[in-house]
């Protein structure tokens, strides 16, 4: 009988907060083969264990942490962990990944998966040390910011090498745009911090001394050296990306006319590359951060230098934060963005959703829909960086206008009314990330069809954004062939990044041509489970279908695969994508192609029984009742 002989610890830890019990379960080899790990395990468990219609902030929702089979080994850049729950922001699958050192420490502590169930009676954190599990009173850290929380727990447990994932005040206050922070990194999107808060669950602290064995040392050496060579051969990974990190994409997207600005009303007009792109960070950068077993170190430590922000240190801001707390809000003051980035990390807020929500409020203020009376005297004109920093705090603590905005733009528009939903930039409730898809149409299709809502990490079209010609070159301004492209981007990324929890930057910098081959070679070397590249890609397709099925079960249909009105009716007015939009007809044509290549029902967007059975998901077809 087939089994894994390395990579996996073989252990699932199931924790019930309600009655403070836990038990260990064995990781079935069938699950490992069908879903690899990480997002695959999370979404499989979510589908199987969280019933349709579950309130995401109720004890019945589950929070699932899962690193990948390579995490904690010497495989480079496998240093991530997925966190999965039903999202309280979108009611879809809520899954995101975070890097740093927490994921490997978690694995070394003895587990492939942690399932959190129920709700603690009082604030609690979990302490896991080498397979020893204990529930700890979190009264002392409840209400603390994330860096304080981590430090207090380390002090209390008398070990500075403990790694911790925790929520800040935003999560405690059930903000649906709250995130989970480990070190200074975030499992950022979809409101997973609120899920933790709803369970009175402040943190999970881990420490492990175990090692993760590999199935074949000989094959491992070969597979690892091939991967390192591909990374070394990249024309951009070490020479550029390691030095400038993601902020270089501000310069790139400004050039392409797709850096969204002022709640997506001024893309192509407001081009702040000089102010908040690579150059102003050069004088503020004081160091780099490396995730576990990462030879690249793309994350930048930046120190604000001017005004009231001088002396504030942040890991970042990354590109997405420069968009959300910069372009989106019309703020071109770099130091204020560094400060706002740090503030979001400390309060446990997703920078993308927070920035987009503030940009939304600013547009309403400029239009006179929100007044000084509504904002408590806060001047919310675009570009007011002091107001932005104030508003972040109000959102996290649900104070004043922050109460209205604390659950993201969709709910804010619903609360404000007056037709403001047409200014709310989200898909399925998740705020739009930093690419104006009117000038990157395949990237747009990925947003429209992503199983988590508007998510740049579920099918990133690097062919359009960076011109990488893998699997083939595409015209970013055309809709032709984007259905096929999007399926490839979603499935290959899921299979080679999200399930094995590999760094997604590798895909566009170096590994795209050999991604499925690399994952297959590593799976065999590390776990002993033989995979062909096609079988790896199949894992991605299986995951895309299972996640889609979860959303279908929640009532989502083709009608939800759409854009905010603005993107379909207002062409970009200037810049290198001038004149472009994605009309309703464009979207219809792209969706038709996408559903066709996916084998989904054209009218409903629901996976067919034939497709689900082909992927070994017959039981899913039964649950959905599809023919």
């Amino acid at each position, binding site marked *: 009988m087939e089994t894994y002989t390395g990579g996996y610890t073989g252990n699932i830890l199931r924790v019930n907060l309600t009655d403070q019990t836990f038990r260990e379960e064995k990781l079935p080899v069938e699950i490992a083969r069908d879903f690899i790990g990480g997002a695959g395990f999370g979404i499989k468990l979510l589908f199987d264990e969280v019933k349709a219609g579950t309130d995401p902030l109720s004890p019945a929702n589950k929070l699932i942490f899962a690193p990948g089979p390579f995490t904690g080994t010497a495989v480079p850049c496998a240093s991530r962990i997925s966190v999965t729950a039903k999202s309280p922001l979108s009611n879809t699958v809520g899954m995101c990944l975070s890097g740093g050192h927490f994921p490997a420490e978690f694995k070394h502590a003895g587990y492939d998966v942690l399932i959190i169930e129920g709700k603690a009676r009082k604030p609690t954190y979990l302490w896991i040390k080498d397979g020893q599990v204990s529930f700890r009173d979190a009264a002392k850290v409840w209400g603390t910011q994330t860096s304080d929380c981590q430090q207090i727990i380390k002090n209390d447990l008398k070990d500075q090498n403990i790694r911790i994932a925790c929520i800040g005040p935003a999560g405690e206050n059930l903000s649906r745009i709250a995130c989970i922070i480990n070190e200074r990194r975030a499992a950022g999107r979809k409101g997973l911090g609120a899920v933790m808060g709803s369970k009175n669950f402040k943190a999970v602290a881990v420490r492990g001394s175990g090692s993760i064995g590999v199935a074949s040392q000989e094959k491992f050496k070969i597979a690892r050296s091939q991967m390192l060579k591909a990374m070394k051969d990249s024309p951009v990974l070490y020479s*550029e990306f390691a030095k400038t990190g993601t902020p*270089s*994409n501000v310069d*790139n997207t400004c050039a392409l006319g797709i850096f969204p600005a002022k709640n997506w009303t001024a893309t192509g007009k407001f081009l702040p590359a000089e102010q908040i792109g690579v150059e102003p960070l050069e004088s503020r950068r004081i160091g780099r951060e490396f995730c576990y077993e990462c030879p690249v170190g793309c994350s930048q430590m930046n120190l604000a230098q001017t005004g009231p922000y001088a002396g504030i240190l942040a890991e970042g801001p990354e590109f997405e934060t420069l968009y959300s707390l910069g372009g989106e809000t019309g703020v071109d003051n770099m130091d204020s963005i560094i400060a706002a980035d740090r503030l979001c990390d400390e309060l446990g807020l997703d920078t993308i959703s927070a920035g987009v929500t503030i940009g939304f409020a600013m547009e309403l203020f400029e239009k006179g829909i929100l007044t000084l009376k509504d904002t408590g005297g806060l001047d919310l004109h675009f570009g007011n960086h002091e107001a932005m920093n104030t508003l972040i705090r109000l959102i996290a603590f649900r104070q004043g206008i922050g109460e209205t905005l604390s659950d993201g733009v969709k709910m804010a528009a619903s609360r404000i009314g007056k037709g403001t939903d047409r200014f709310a930039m989200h898909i399925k409730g998740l705020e739009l990330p930093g690419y104006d898809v009117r000038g990157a149409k395949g990237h747009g299709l990925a947003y429209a069809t992503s199983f988590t809502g508007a998510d740049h990490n579920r099918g990133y079209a690097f062919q359009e954004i960076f*011109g990488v010609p893998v699997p083939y070159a595409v015209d970013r301004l*055309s809709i032709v062939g984007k259905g096929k492209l999007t399926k490839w981007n979603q499935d290959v990324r899921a299979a080679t990044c999200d399930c094995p929890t590999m760094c997604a930057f590798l895909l566009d910098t170096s590994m795209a041509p050999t991604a499925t081959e690399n994952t297959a070679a590593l799976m065999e070397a590390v776990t002993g489970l033989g995979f062909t590249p096609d079988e790896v890609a199949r894992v991605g397709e299986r995951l895309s279908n299972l996640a889609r099925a979860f959303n279908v079960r929640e009532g989502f249909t083709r009608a939800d695969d759409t854009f905010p009105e603005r993107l379909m009716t207002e062409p970009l007015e200037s810049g290198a994508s001038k004149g472009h939009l994605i009309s309703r007809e464009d979207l219809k044509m792209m969706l038709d192609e996408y559903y066709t290549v996916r084998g989904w029902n054209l009218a409903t967007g629901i996976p067919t029984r034939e497709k689900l059975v082909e992927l070994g998901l017959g039981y899913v077809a039964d649950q959905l009742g599809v023919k």
Partner: protein
Amino acid sequence: MIRVKIYTILALKKVLGQREFEVSLPRGSTVKDLISWMVNRWGDQLSPHLFKTGSDSLLPHIRLMVNGRSIEFLNGMETVLQDGDEFLVLPLVSGGC
């Protein structure tokens, strides 16, 4: 004569000295003509950023666009420039999360 705006970023911006500027070219000029003009203007400083060593073949990762569209979806290096066109010359950038 026609006026064409050149826009670039990052390492190429440092070579050219500015992010965007306009140049005048004879009517009927192509992308190839504009690249030649740029090489004449910036010479040895610019060439390593555009061409393979010892060759006049463009580096595979250089992106050349006219009005935002990559020239491989136009007429390649023979694409004829029009008055008012914007020419993007972008070095390889990566890391989009």
